[in-house]
Each structure stands twice: as C-alpha cells, then as structure tokens.
C-alpha cells in the first residue's frame, strides 16, 4: 500500500490540479487576512480570543477565513478524488495494478490516504500562513487555549475534507465516466452548501406550520429547520467551526428571552466548547467512514476488465 501512497502523492503534488488548489488556498489565506484586517478592530473581542478573531472576523465585503474554508475544502476534496478509480479504469491501468500482489482495497486506501496527506499539507500551510502574518498584523500572541482550539479546527477541517474526498472517490467508483463523477460530486456540494438552506424552511413549514404564531410553534419550526440543515456536512462543519473558534457562542440552539437575560456573556471554556461540538465531530467522522465503507464494498465487488 505504501507504494500506492507514494505514487499517488507524487502524482498529486506534481499535478496541475494541486497547483490550482494551492493557488486557491493562498488566495483564501490572503482574503481571510484581508477580512481580519478590516474587521478585527470593530469586533470587540474579549481578551484571550483576539488571535482566533483573525480566522473568524469578516470584513466589509470579504467573508471570514473560516467561511471561505468551508466552501474551499469540499472543492479541494472533490478535485483530489473525483477521478480516482474511473480514470484508472478508462486508462487501462487498474487491471494492471490489480494483477500485482496488492490487496484490492489498498488501491482505494492508498488513494484516500494520499489525498488526506495532501489536504493536511494544504490546510496546514494555510493556517500557518494566516497565523504568521496575522501575528505580525495584530501583535497579540495566541494563548495556549487558542492554540489548542486551532489544532482542533485543523483536525476538523481535515476530517471535513476527507469526507468530500471519500465521497468523490465513491462517485469515481460508481460512475464509469469522469465527467459524471465530477458533476455529481459538485451537485452534491451545491446542494449541501446552498440548496439545503433554501429548502429547510419549506420542509419545516410543511411539517410544523406556524399558523397560530405561538411561541411553541415557532420554536418547533425553528428546531426542525436546524435539524434539516444539520443533514448537511457543510452546516455541521460551519457550526462546529463557530463553536471552536468563537468561544462567545454558548449555544447552538435557540434561547428564549428569559434564558438570554440570564446568560453571562463569558466565553465558553475549552472543555465546554468541545463538549458542544463533540456530536458534530463524530458525525463528520462517521460520514467519512460511511463513504469509505460504501466505496470499499462496491469496489471489492466490481468487475475488473480492461475493456
């Protein structure tokens, strides 16, 4: 399997796709820094979270780095995986590789791991870039807690990317044609990042109409909307990011006015933040695992013919 990882990594880092993704990563880092530069003064961040503000504050036009990342990472994951298997099948290399003494699953494992390593390099570069330049810009060093939060964010981002990579690889197994797997992956990305926000209110209204406008009805409707959107890994990722990097966010649900008045505007402790996003992290990991498992099963049963 290491042979496959080695080759795939070498392929990835020399491909035009990698260069393009890397340029995107750099652009996003620059945009994020720009946004922070514009917005960080206005955002009155409590002490101890200023450094995180570099990643989460948005400017007047430019959205925050974390938002850009939530859009960019799926694209990179898809770009790394959408033709993993079907291009090898079409190119006639798959049957030759599988005639070598390698387990069939190590082909997808190798590709998946090489993709994850590539993702790690990209995300790592981006975070280091922003952290480095940002430190220079604001002059406030991060606290230990902030560093830990950033590490969690780093991990979360890679898991999120791995999900999209796994999904793209799955489509590359299901569809014989590269164009089909690319289109389906992108369609799903669009659906999860945009359309789900548009259809969630519709679904919620259908199930829990707010005809009387009572508070109970409104709450139920709102909770339903949240539930629907949480089917989207993009939303899960965005929520988890917010909790991890904006300690002021204390709850992901709705608060009643009475609850809100009693809320102490203190940042959440690290442990509490992690507790809050734990379900998000595990769902993202299990989503990736499901993608991977389905790919595995399909690939093991597929006919391997050169023609």
């Amino acid at each position, binding site marked *: 399997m290491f042979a496959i990882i080695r080759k795939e990594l070498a392929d990835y880092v020399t491909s035009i796709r990698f260069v393009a993704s890397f340029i995107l990563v750099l652009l996003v880092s620059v945009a994020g820094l720009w946004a922070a530069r514009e917005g960080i003064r206005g955002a009155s961040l409590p002490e101890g979270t200023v450094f995180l503000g570099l990643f989460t504050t948005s400017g007047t036009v430019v959205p925050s780095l974390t938002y850009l990342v939530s859009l960019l990472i799926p694209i990179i994951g898809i770009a790394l995986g959408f033709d993993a298997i079907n291009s090898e099948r079409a190119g*006639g290399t798959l049957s030759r590789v599988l005639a070598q003494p390698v387990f069939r699953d190590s082909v997808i494992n190798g590709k998946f791991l090489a993709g994850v390593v590539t993702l790690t390099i990209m995300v790592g570069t981006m975070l280091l870039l922003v952290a480095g330049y940002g430190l220079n810009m604001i002059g406030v060093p991060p606290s230990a807690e902030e560093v830990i939060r950033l590490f969690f964010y780093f991990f979360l981002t890679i898991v999120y990317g791995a999900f999209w990579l796994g999904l793209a690889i799955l489509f590359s197994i299901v569809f014989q044609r590269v164009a089909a797997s690319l289109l389906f992956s992108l369609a799903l990305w669009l659906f999860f990042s945009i359309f789900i926000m548009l259809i969630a209110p519709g679904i919620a209204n259908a199930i829990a109409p707010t005809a009387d406008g009572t508070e109970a009805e409104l709450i139920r409707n709102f909770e339903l909307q949240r539930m629907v959107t949480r089917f989207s890994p993009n939303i899960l990722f965005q929520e988890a990011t917010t909790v991890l990097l904006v300690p002021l966010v204390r709850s992901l649900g709705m608060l009643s006015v009475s609850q809100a008045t009693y809320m102490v505007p203190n940042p959440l402790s690290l442990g509490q933040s992690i507790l809050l996003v734990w379900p998000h992290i595990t769902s993202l990991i299990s989503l990736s695992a499901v993608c991977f498992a389905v790919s595995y099963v399909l690939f093991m049963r597929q006919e391997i013919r050169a023609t």
Partner: protein
Amino acid sequence: MSDMLAIEARDLTKRYDSVNVVDHLNLQVKESEVFGLLGPNGAGKTTTILMMLGLTEPASGAVSVLGFNPTREPLKIKRQVGYLPEKVGFYENLTARENLRFIADLNGISYAEANQRADEALEMVGLTDSEIMEQLGPNRKIEKTVGKFSRGMKQRLGIAEVLIKRPKLVFLDEPTAGLDPKGINQLLDLISGLPKIGTTVVLSSHQLYQVQRVCHTIGILAKGKMVIQGAIDKLGREALAGGRFQIEAETEAPSEKLIEVIRGIKGVGSLEVKDNVLVISTDADLRREVSKAIVENNFPLIQMKIQEFSLDDVYMKYFREE
C-alpha cells in the same frame, strides 16, 4: 517442457446475465510450455484469463494456478504471475521507467534492483533509448512520458512490465496487437525464449500463424467451450481425421491393384477415387513415392497436386461453424 502442470482448470464456468460465456472449460497447461488460446471474438479468452488471475470470480468449477486457487489466494498467484491485458494502459504522465518502477515497487522490489531490471526488460523488448527519450534543447535529453508513446511502443512496454517481476507464468492477452511485423517477430522470438528461463506462457490470439510459430500446445475456444486442445504437431492430423497433406494424382482408369500398392505406402492414411483422380491423405509429402508407384505399375501420371493442411484449416473450420 516438464510434466508438471502450471494450470489446471476443471469445469470452469463463468456466467454473465445467465449466459455461460465460459462453459465447463477443462484445460491443462504444463510447466515451461507456451500455450496458445485461440478463438473468435467473444469466445471467452479474456474471461478465462481473468478467472485464472483471480480478477473475476468463476460461477462454478475449479482452477488451480501454480498450485493455488485464484479466488482464495490471489496474492500468492499474483506474486509469481505476469499479466498483459488486451488493452494496455499506462500512467501517461509518467515515463516508461517510472511506470516500470511503480510496478516493481508494488512487487516489493527495491529501487536499485528495479532500475536494473527496468533496463534489462526494456532491452529485452527492444525499446531503445532513442525511442523512450526525447530531445529537450540542443544537447539535453529527457525521458518521454508514456503519453507520447506510439501504440506499439506501449505494447512493448507492457511486455517489459510483465517481465520485470521475473514471473514463473505469464498471461499475454493478444500480445502482438498493434505491433509492426518487425515488432511481432521480435516479440515471438522473445516469447519462445521464455520457457528456457523457466517461464510458462499462456497467450491468447486470433493470429493462428503466430501461435503456430511459438506455441507448443493450443486450445481453440468457441462460445466458451474448448473445442479442441492438444500439442500443435498432433492437432492438425487429429482434427482433419487423416493426414496433414492431401495429394491429388490424376491417372487413367486406376486398377484395384494400383490402389492397393498406394495404400501400402508407409504414411498414407485414406485414399479415395473420384473418376480418374486419386485423393490421398498422408502425413508427409509422399509425392515421390506415389508417382513412382503409378509409373512403375504402368499407369500414366497426368497431373499431381499437393495441398498441405495447416492448423489454419482446423481453425477456420471451427470459425465457420459459428
């Protein structure tokens, strides 16, 4: 050739959509022989090879390759077996040597060893430096990526890749496809040399004359069934139920005695008389003996024709039965 079996298949069957594309196939390949699998398009040659490699599962029946079951122990087979698919494909963004090194890497061959074997294999298949390198600038040469190779060069690279792991057994699915006549000759020479270094070869082809040149044993497949299998020198006779040669001698009113004399010549199989023409099946070129017999018995020899039956006729016979 030894008497050990490299491959033994019994009642091997593969079904696609409830059609038996390989149908109760029985087949034996001895160690260190070249076995030719012949058959028209869609006969099931590729499917048979894939089942032996463990790349496709048989519906029923059993096959043992180098003593292993391909479905249960595919890796043990793949370690010792080379496979050239009918449609060879390479990573087009890599050079010939990079492609070879990757395959070597998958086989756990070290980098230095792989480099050495790659050079050897490229030389064996006749891929010269001038073919795999390209000029970059006035006096700088780099290796070409395989994307820039011609069809025949890729085919030869495919053979090189098969050889790089020094296999005990190779499956070549239509190895001469896409090669020019010179390339075909080189490849056939290479293939016939493989048994000497202990490699058994199974090749599939439509080109009978190529198969005849290098194979010790052939099997002809039609619609998934083995219609005939055997050593190449025996096959023709068996299939034509008589000799490999057919001599037609025209004389005048041949007598019973003459016919008896000719029947008595060593090597004559059957004899038929059609008007004044004697149609004689023999297993060697017996024109001299036959003409001598006719003349010595005072019959005129008006004309004489000989026709050699090759495997071609056997082959065509089965193809016409389609």
